[in-house]
């Protein structure tokens, strides 16, 4: 039986141009991502194969750009991850199923009836405008989420928007966007949420989590929750900084920097720290897992990391080509921290200079003024009391 299943999946993969070897290599990288040894590869391959018969998964979209859907779907040439995701029984992807209209919604509804499905949520939760910033099938996005969340076995919040509101909640946040876990907490819904930030989400991570949750059974045993950090992010993905694993780190240590784009230093692939690389403050394993079928990733492609895997990432990282973020000063507007420091220091220096002129003018610069005979308050007391 199991053997037939294996054949089935390899046929399916072969039909899409993925060889058995590619698939096993892919399962190997999932194992590595999950911190498992090579010995787990057959188990993962078998689990992916059985996948379709496990929990159904539903993909809903909140307020976002659908970039995460795009990253997963990669419509023109699906990669192993895409195919695996398909096999893993994604019953309904809201954006992609929309053309089917009412039928698709009815199919999703059928899944919602039956507790125990996995809910993948892309996009922010927009609380503003009474939730009317997003309407699907006649209800608000908020109603949809509140409807879908309680019966789910777990929610995977994909992309920074779903994690904490992402770019949608950047100042001034007109839609009052927030993340799934924050919203559910507000509503007292306690379905566990696995957060997978970055903008968009990396498909490899979604596969890894689905394998972990659906196939290795870590949800049932509760083991998945131990693998999450305090922000609900899997530690094995978000446990180290970009900077820790960056291939340009040697240039950083040696002080080989790109100070300006279009220079020789850029061509030499030097470290992007002075042009605002947020790698030192950003906790993701982008340099290891990489992007776009493991082809490359931001820094390798020559762009400083803009920190899209951080919480509140836009406000915390912008302007992206500066080392420090801007601080929003009331009345003044966005200001760089060193501008503020410079102004304060300038005022202080001017103050000291003026004071020094005063000290000189009052003749205090050679030994100070003569000392008072007694403290002022003792003098006053003596006056009042007419003596000691």
């Amino acid at each position, binding site marked *: 039986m199991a053997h037939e299943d294996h054949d089935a999946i390899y046929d399916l993969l072969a039909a899409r141009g993925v060889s058995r070897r590619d698939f096993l290599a892919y399962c190997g990288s999932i194992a590595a991502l999950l911190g498992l040894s090579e010995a787990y590869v057959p188990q993962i391959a078998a689990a992916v194969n059985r996948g379709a018969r496990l929990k159904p998964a539903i993909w809903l979209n909140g307020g976002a750009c659908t970039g995460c859907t795009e990253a997963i779907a990669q419509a023109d040439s699906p990669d192993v991850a895409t195919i695996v995701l398909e096999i893993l029984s994604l019953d309904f992807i809201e954006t992609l199923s929309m053309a089917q209209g009412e039928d698709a919604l009815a199919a999703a509804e059928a899944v919602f009836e039956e507790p125990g499905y996995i809910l993948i949520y892309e996009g922010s939760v927009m609380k503003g405008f009474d939730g009317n910033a997003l309407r699907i099938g006649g209800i608000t996005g908020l109603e949809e989420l509140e409807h879908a969340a309680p019966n789910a076995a777990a929610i995977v919040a994909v992309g920074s928007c779903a994690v904490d509101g992402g770019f949608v909640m950047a100042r001034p946040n007109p839609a009052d966007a927030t993340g799934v876990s924050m919203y559910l907490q507000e509503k007292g819904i306690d379905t566990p949420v696995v957060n997978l930030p970055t903008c968009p989400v990396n498909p490899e991570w979604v596969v890894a989590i689905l394998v972990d949750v659906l196939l290795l059974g870590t949800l049932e045993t509760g083991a998945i929750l131990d693998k999450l950090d305090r922000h609900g992010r899997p530690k094995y993905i978000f446990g180290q900084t970009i900077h*820790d694993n960056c291939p340009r780190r040697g240039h950083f240590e040696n*002080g080989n920097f790109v100070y300006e784009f279009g220079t020789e230093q850029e061509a030499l692939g030097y470290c992007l720290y002075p042009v605002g690389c947020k790698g030192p*403050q950003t906790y993701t394993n982008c340099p290891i897992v990489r992007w776009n079928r493991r082809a490359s990733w931001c820094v390798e492609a020559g762009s400083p990391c803009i920190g899209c895997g951080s919480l509140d990432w836009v406000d915390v990282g912008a302007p992206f080509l500066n080392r420090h973020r801007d*601080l929003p000063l009331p009345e003044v507007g966005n200001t760089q*921290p060193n501008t503020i420091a410079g102004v304060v220091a300038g005022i202080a220096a001017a103050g000291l200079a003026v004071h020094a002129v005063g000290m000189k003018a009052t003749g205090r610069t*050679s*030994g*100070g*003024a003569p000392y008072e005979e007694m*403290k002022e308050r003792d003098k006053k007391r003596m006056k009042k009391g007419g003596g000691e």
Partner: protein
Amino acid sequence: MAHPAHYREAHPFIFVMTHWINLVSIVALTISGFYIHYPFLPGLMSVMRGMHFFFMFVLLINLAVRIIGAFTVKSATRLGTREVDTDIKNWLPQKLNRGQMWPWLKYYLFLKKEHPIGAKYGVLQKIAYLFTIPLTLAAAYTGFAIWGPTMDWGFLIAGTDAVGGPMAMRIIHYYIMWGFILFTAIHIYLANIEGTDPSKLIFKWEETEGLQFDAEGRVVGGKGH
């Protein structure tokens, strides 16, 4: 004209040393800090970071030594005297400081002509020096919160989350540096504007003659009386 005598008892040698170490550490941390903030010259990052990570421990150990010294070493209790008592007494409000905050402020704002009576340190001076302790601890806390080996310690992470992440922590650390720069600028200015005798003592441990005071803060003799 009327400066107090500066005797070695005011700054026993151990405190001359801690002050020197403090000065060198702060300068090294500020230079390397500016470099880490923005590497203005190519080629020096590992040197600068190494310097930063070395002197941050020197600074903290030095602070610990200074605090232990406060309880174990005797130093002069006021200006212009060789009478000594446990050093910590100089850091708590002393009899001679009482009611003198306002006169000191007025003196520096040119609203009072005469030099207010003070103990070894005047009220404002005492507050400013003591302020360097929380400032150093804040530099350490924010620094360790962005230092690889310690950044995931629970009590540091709690702070990092509270301020809004590691970028915010870095900016706070950066502003603490500016806190040190402002303190040091004002400190250097005030320490030397009325003459360099205090500096001769704290740096070269060199005594200078001048006015002597009694326990009530009255001038009782010495050069210039």
